[in-house]
């Protein structure tokens, strides 16, 4: 059925003039033109025009509906899952690094929580790598980048294990191994993951563009056939003085139902699609980068406190990462963008919480720098200080706030995309085709009956 309707609407249709000539010849209705003035002649012509109009609008409409449904399904079932996988991969990698480096701040025995978090994040990253690899399909660049990360991740974890082993023995070389691991992560693995993430976000944008096109041709053809049907009924009423022609009424009904279905679906589905796009965009363009910036800032801070990096160079990096996260008290940076992209009050409230946590984290960092006397080890204490209310460090509170905002937007996305791809939307193509056939049959039957009266 779908295929049939698609054939009708092959883009390279011959010009309508030639089609009419061909139809005349095939149907041997040449003589109709000679008796154009007779009522049967007019009826025949009307029938042909109606059938063609209805089938054309149905075909074009079914095709457009099919494209729309496919793109929606593509977003919901393929592109967004892959996009979510690479986004999570990116975040997990950064989180693993932030977690293991901050664990070193506690001394030679890393706290159980940071070790567990590191293990979890590496496991998560490995799982996402596998899934993303399986979904990459024929996208060579994506497959290539995934292979890159897959090759580098064991080198990273190997360096981390050496770092942990040496640190357990109280040897400062552990911290240097940690810096080497972190450098591999920050300067090679994470940029690759970022490239992957950007690529998937761009594919998602493309898919949304494909859902956004309004089927002008289908709507125009629909309007023309509706007008034709009404005109035919008025014409028959004048000639026959019968109010209802059941066939034509049924045809009109079918076209009207189709039009209504189209309009309602178009409006509602477009709304949900737009909503899902905004939620997805706020994660990929703002909250995701915010998470990464925060995690990278944490890793930078830890390495500087551990004496593994030149403190001034690390401070510059930290400041740059915090500017990416939120500048001007949260008016700019990724969190400022996230606030602008948030679509509802709850989303904005979550971003606002994250902004205030970011400010709190930065203040804790500054405070650690300015503590006196004792210098660095007090800065370590400040970086590890737990909040009495939550039992979390300032950084963990920021991380949780960001995670909450991301989770909210992701759930909102999933709700919207689910609503946008419900059955009555995805079956619009079949429905349109069926309605068009019904309308065509109605037009033929209705006009034939009148024609028979002239035999």
């Amino acid at each position, binding site marked *: 059925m779908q295929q049939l309707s698609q054939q009708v609407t092959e883009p390279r249709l011959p010009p309508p003039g030639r089609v009419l000539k061909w139809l005349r010849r095939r149907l041997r209705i040449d003589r109709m033109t000679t008796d154009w003035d007779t009522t049967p002649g007019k009826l025949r012509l009307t029938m042909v025009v109606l059938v063609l109009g209805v089938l054309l609008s149905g075909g074009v409409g079914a095709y457009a509906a099919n494209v729309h449904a496919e793109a929606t399904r593509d977003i919901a079932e393929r592109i967004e899952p892959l996009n979510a996988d690479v986004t999570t991969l990116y975040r997990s990698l950064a989180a693993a690094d932030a977690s293991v480096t901050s664990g070193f701040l506690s*001394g*030679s025995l890393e706290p159980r929580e940071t070790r567990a978090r590191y293990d979890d994040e590496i496991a998560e990253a490995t799982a996402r790598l596998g899934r993303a690899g399986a979904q990459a399909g024929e996208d060579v660049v994506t497959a290539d980048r995934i292979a890159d990360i897959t090759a580098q991740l064991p080198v990273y974890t190997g360096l981390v294990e*050496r770092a942990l082993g*040496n*640190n357990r023995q*109280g*040897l*400062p*070389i552990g*911290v*240097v*191994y940690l810096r*080497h691991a972190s450098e591999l992560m920050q300067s090679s693995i994470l940029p690759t993951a970022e490239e992957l993430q950007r690529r998937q976000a761009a594919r998602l944008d493309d898919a949304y563009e494909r859902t956004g096109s309004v089927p002008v041709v289908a709507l125009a053809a629909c309007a023309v056939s509706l007008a034709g049907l009404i005109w035919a009924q008025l014409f028959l009423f004048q000639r026959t003085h019968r109010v209802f022609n059941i066939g034509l009424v049924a045809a009109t009904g079918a076209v009207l139902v189709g039009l209504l279905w189209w309009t309602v679906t178009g409006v509602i589905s477009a709304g949900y699609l737009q909503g899902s796009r905004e939620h997805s965009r706020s994660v990929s363009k703002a909250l995701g980068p915010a998470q990464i910036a925060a995690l990278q800032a944490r890793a930078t801070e830890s390495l*500087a406190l*551990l*004496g*593994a*990096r*030149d*403190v*001034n*160079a690390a401070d510059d990096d930290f400041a740059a990462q915090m500017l990416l996260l939120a500048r001007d008290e949260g008016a700019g940076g990724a969190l400022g963008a996230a606030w602008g992209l948030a679509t509802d009050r709850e989303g904005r409230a979550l971003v606002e919480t994250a902004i205030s946590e970011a400010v709190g984290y930065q203040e804790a960092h500054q405070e650690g720098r300015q503590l*006196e*006397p*004792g*210098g*660095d*080890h007090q800065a*370590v*204490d400040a970086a590890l200080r737990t909040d009495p209310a939550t039992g979390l460090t300032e950084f963990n509170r920021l991380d949780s706030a960001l995670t909450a905002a991301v989770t909210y937007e992701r759930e909102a996305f999933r709700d919207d995309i689910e609503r946008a791809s419900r059955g009555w939307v995805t079956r619009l193509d079949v429905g349109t085709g069926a309605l068009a056939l019904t309308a065509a049959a109605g037009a033929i039957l209705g006009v034939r009956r009148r024609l028979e009266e002239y035999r």
Partner: protein
Amino acid sequence: MSIRFALASFAVAAVLLVGTAACQSSDHSAPTSTAPAPEALPDPSVVSSATSEPTASTCNLVGSLRPQDPLPEPGRMRPGSTMAGIAERGRLVVAVGLDTYLISSRNPQTGQLEGFDIDIAGDLAEAIFGDRERVEYRQLDLPGRLAAVESREVDLMVGTTTITCRRQAQVEFSTVYYQAGQRVLVNRGSGVTDLDGLASKRVCASRGSTSLQKVLANQPGPVPVGEPSVTDCLVMLQLGEVDAVSTDDALLAGLAAQDPRTEIVGPRFSTEPYGVAINKAAPDLVRFVNAVLERRVEDGRWQKSYQDWLMRELGPLPSPPEPQYRD
């Protein structure tokens, strides 16, 4: 070795004879430059290398400013002095090297920095405040340490830094607090006994260091590899990325202590006088530091510090360096 040492001593003596003012006039770099020395180029002002002929050199390497007054009581710094400013701030800001075992490294149990250099910083804080804990450490790489002293971001720097003429153009140095010498660290059983045995092998030292310049200058030439810190060099050695580490024995001691499968081989082939670096605009602080350094040799703290950190790897106590002054 003894000949080399004698040559080195001769070089030092010759330098002392040349006088005090020569240093400024002969320096190649602009005194106000904060840019770190390019790492790949040999420092033309390095004269402490005993592998090269002692030249009629150029600057007073080891003569510092003589302590003038007896050390004031802690907490009673002379008003208007640099030390009074530090006392008012409440903490001494000290640049030290990135984590370097036995010299300046974080004790994972206590979270505190400790080591041979940290002892000096502690003694200085004690002399100012009567409290060795009143120190804020800034761990910086070598170019960063010198720049921090120049910009007065820190009060002083204790960072296993060899006194050279070029660096003297940037900062003022205290008297020599340790006489280090460059040696070679290799994996046990490598068969290498000195730098000459490392021709066209990869040899690591920290970026911007005099050690790296000497690796570069050596004939037959090894391939020099510059890393942010000497501990990075040990990482590279363990990962098989380099064949040897060559730097001052005091630093190699910290590396050998962390990896029993390595050993320090060959004789010292240079003398590296370590000094505390202080901003040129604070000569009173230089004199104060020199007085504290003299006192810690007299009361045996220098000796105890050596025994605590370096003796296990570097052998029996050497005699502490004799303080030398230019005025």
